[in-house]
């Protein structure tokens, strides 16, 4: 059943956020620490485990895949929720710090991606439908 996949996703989401909150309390910050990341890790491991046990039929997977495919539309809606007016009102200090920070980080990314050995690839990646 398709709802099993969505329920699995929901379980990972909630458990991850809860663990992220606990981690935040443990290190003394008033925010969630990596809740979504923990939820992703949970889902990755649960998927591998259930797959091995043969408990994850295609239909259940579709319950997760749908939400993965909804990702870009959700991000577009998120963009439409940004406080763009406040961002523009920030003035030169905000504009310059943001631009400089982004530029420095972009250069750093360029350096890091070109150094070291990169043995990762998308060769075995699942095919995604184009939007």
């Amino acid at each position, binding site marked *: 059943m398709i709802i099993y996949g969505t329920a699995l996703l929901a379980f990972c989401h909630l458990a991850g956020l809860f663990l992220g909150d606990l981690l935040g309390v443990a290190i003394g910050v*008033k925010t969630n620490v990596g809740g979504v990341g923990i939820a992703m890790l949970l889902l990755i491991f649960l998927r591998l485990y259930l797959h091995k046990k043969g408990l994850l039929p295609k239909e259940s997977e579709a319950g997760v895949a749908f939400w993965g495919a909804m*990702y870009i539309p959700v991000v577009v809606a998120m963009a439409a929720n940004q406080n763009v007016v406040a961002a523009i009102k920030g003035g030169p200090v905000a504009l310059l710090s943001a631009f400089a*920070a982004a530029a420095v980080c972009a250069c750093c990314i360029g350096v890091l991606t070109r150094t070291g050995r990169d043995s990762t690839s998308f060769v075995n990646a699942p095919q995604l439908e184009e939007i």
Partner: protein
Amino acid sequence: MLHMLEKIFVQNGLVTSFALVGLIMWVSSLISRKLTFGRVHGSAIAIVIGLVLAWLGGVFTGGQKGLADLPLFTGVGLMGGAMLRDFAIVATAFEVQANEARKAGLIGVVSLLLGTLLPFVVGASIAHAFGYTDAVSMTTIGAGAVTYIVGPVTGAAIGASSDVIALSIATGLIKAIIVMIGTPIAAGFMGLKTPRSAMIFGGLAGTVSGVSAGLAATDRRLVPYGALIATFHTGIGCLLGPSVLFFATRALVGT
């Protein structure tokens, strides 16, 4: 007639937002194909349209939630809010290949730390250059350059004034928007091609919103790897901002 239609839109906010976003995606893919001949990704155009709509919504209502402040489009707030955004991000983890992610785990953590430190130093220095020479203001604006949540959390913790906190939020928001729009443009320069590079990007570019939109506009397959790292960004920033980074700044500038 129009009144009845409006009532239906308002009462079915989330469904209205599905229709609206679908329309935006369709228009964007048309623009992408006909006007740019596929050179600019459809989702990149859609995100820019989203930002423009957010700006219009803010101008018309004076609110803080962009388009979602218009009663007709409150559903967009639900669809693009933290709940569904995180739900969809977690769902993309289904596409992560555990082996690829593991190979780049260490460099991901390194870039996460660099991604907190570098924007902070840059932001705090520029704040200093513009006359915000006290440690509290420098730290708050520097933290804002990390993400727009780290800024106010740090500012509140160390007692910054509300205009400095507003400035730090604006800094973080502008950075997120730059990342959203700039990533597809600078993708070649940053070497964004593999899971490893996406994880480095997720650590350094910061903000879940910027990273998720930026990678979506570049190559959808990069998203889960970048998001996996980026979700730790705010937590690390909120941890280091009011503590180590504040103490270091205070030690440097004195007050």
